[in-house]
């Protein structure tokens, strides 16, 4: 589902990524860990075209990414984003829209799903993340964990094949974080390939089948806790 081949990126003179490679199969849940500032978020952003890279190549959900995204047209990019959901660390919910409107916006606008259908689907997704009764609330009326879950529902609303999650639980207390993590696994349940970035190794091990560590600009596989035992 995802193939990353010797991906490299420079910011000025600093190499943020160098020779990153990984193969991730369909339905896998993979966590990428590493120190803050090691390039985890950058790698994730490169995978759905929010940022470009300088060397190497990547294939994601059938889309070929090349340096500078030169081979990808604007419509391709939009299709890519339809297939690859993304949830931000700071959630970036739209403050002028209710939870339900946040979730239904993209299906309605991008995929032209009729308004009623989009609304029903949004309610379904909000129910799945445990927020059925908060559908009419605006982001400022929700708690941090609730916002994170709305962002998750929003990323899932387009039925993506791949879900990219950037620190989905970082702003949350341990209990809430646990709840959000469980929700993620429940709603994706082997149907969606999940790549999540986190600095909490314990969470990574609990959620992901495989954990990769990004260090010095390159990826290395971490042994699972069962292997070390």
């Amino acid at each position, binding site marked *: 589902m995802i193939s990353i081949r010797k991906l490299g990126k420079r910011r000025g003179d600093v190499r943020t990524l160098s020779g990153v490679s990984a193969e991730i199969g369909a339905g896998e849940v993979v966590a990428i860990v590493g120190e803050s500032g090691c390039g985890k978020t950058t790698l994730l952003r490169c995978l*759905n075209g*929010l940022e470009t890279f300088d060397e190497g190549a990547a294939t994601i959900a059938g889309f070929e990414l090349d340096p500078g995204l030169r081979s990808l047209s*604007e419509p391709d990019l*939009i*299709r890519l*984003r*339809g297939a690859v959901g*993304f949830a*931000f660390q*700071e959630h*970036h*919910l*739209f*403050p*002028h829209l209710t939870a339900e409107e946040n979730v239904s*916006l*993209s299906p309605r*606008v*991008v995929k032209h799903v009729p308004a009623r259908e989009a609304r029903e689907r949004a309610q379904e997704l909000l129910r799945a993340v445990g927020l059925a009764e908060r559908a009419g609330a*605006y982001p*400022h*009326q929700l708690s941090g964990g609730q916002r994170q879950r709305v962002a998750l529902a*929003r*990323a899932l609303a*387009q039925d993506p094949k791949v879900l990219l999650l950037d620190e989905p639980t970082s702003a949350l207390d341990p209990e809430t974080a646990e709840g959000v993590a469980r929700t993620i696994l429940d709603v994706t349940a082997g149907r969606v390939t999940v790549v999540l970035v986190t600095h909490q190794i314990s969470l990574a091990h609990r959620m992901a089948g495989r954990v990769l560590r990004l260090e010095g600009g390159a990826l290395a596989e971490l042994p699972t806790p069962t292997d070390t035992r």
Partner: protein
Amino acid sequence: MSRKVRVVKLRALAAFTVACVAGPARADTLSAARARGELVFGADAQGGEPFVFEDPNDPRRKLIGFEVDIADALAADVGVRARFSQADWSTLVPSLERGDFDVAMNGLEDTPSRRARILLTLPYFSFGETLAVKRGDGRKSLDALAGGRIGTLNQSFADDLLRGRGFEPVLYEGVSEPYADLALGRISGVLLDHVIADRYGCVRPDVDCVRDDVARGTYAIGVRHGDEALVARLNEALGRLRRSGTLERILEKWKLWDFRQVELSHRLETGAATAPPPPSAVSRAWSFADTRLFLAGALVTLALSTAAFALALPLGLGLALCRLGRRGPLRAFAVTYIELFRGTPLLLQLYVLYFGLAPVFRLPPWAAAVLALAMNYGAYEAEIHRGALLAVPSGQGEAARALGLTRFQALRHVLLPQSFRIALPSMTNDFVALLKDSSLVSVITVVELTKRMTIAAVDLRGWLVPGLACAALYFAMSYPLSRLAARLEGALRRDQHPEAR
């Protein structure tokens, strides 16, 4: 008679203020002038040739003109020097009353309304009202033009005369514009003093001037009430200048001595009536008709402003997006447009659009007014929306893009709904400013609220009542707007800040 471009709004306001604060005149100006050794004449150097104007050949731009020569001769007769004091033509009388100068001498026509307010000396010049029509037009009299649109200058003798004859004059602020509009067919005739008509109208190849004067009038020197001694002394001096031939020499020098002056001299010698027959329009009190006209003027102001703002808004948004966009040429265009329209006066833009571009495309006055206001305010709106769009957190656009929205969809569904809330207070502010700036369009003959006020002020011989009525109407339009915007703002913000109601 006014002879130049006047910024109605500013001057009307100035006159209004002056009228409100006018203090008592100083006692016995003549003795004071003698003691000082100079008599101060109030005039407007912008009036232009041949009245009082700056000598283009003099490096220090000394003031010259036939009125300068007459003033010098009069002062010499009294035994003092003449000094000119600059004043706006439309505020000459209030400035005189305030005591800014000793006498006003700048093409002041002898009219009943002026006589009611200040003292006037004997006339020093006789003028005729010249009717001009488009070349080839067979209608050579006011009667033949009945019902037509006749142009003249605001607050002029001809303005009074036309309204006395049942016309609703099209009022201009400058001397060449009425003739330009006549040639373009926007109006069917122009009635102005022969001094102006000879210089600005009859010389045009596309304009015919009717030979016989429609009416006659005279210019006299304005003096404050209570200065009867000064009037007597100036009349004595004027008589001497006339008898000695000095006046004739001065007017001859400026090519102004003609049959009209000869007739005036004769009339003065034979002791015939010194005042010309009153042109018409006598002073009256505020009436129901005024209320109706003011309301109609307010409606014009509101309609103009609303239409202009409705155009300025999308224009400004478009410019803001061009300026924020990635395409270099569009960005350069937006920056140039904004700087150009923000950096030049709206008044100038109105003139260029209405008069300057008339040979290329001929817009009706209201269309030119709406367009000029919209283009000017579009530049301001552009900056408001640019600032507001920049104030939306960058993560919002990124989140929209990550959801697969196109740039346009992100703008339409995510960025603009948020930036609009940010822009709303400034937009309201801009609309209120536009409402007031719309008074400038009177220079292209649109009669809106402020223009209605200046017209009424002449009829009612005072600025106070029409000024207050005008101010009340502007306030009545802008205040509810501010309230509405405040409520709208509260409603829009409720989804973000629950405490802001």
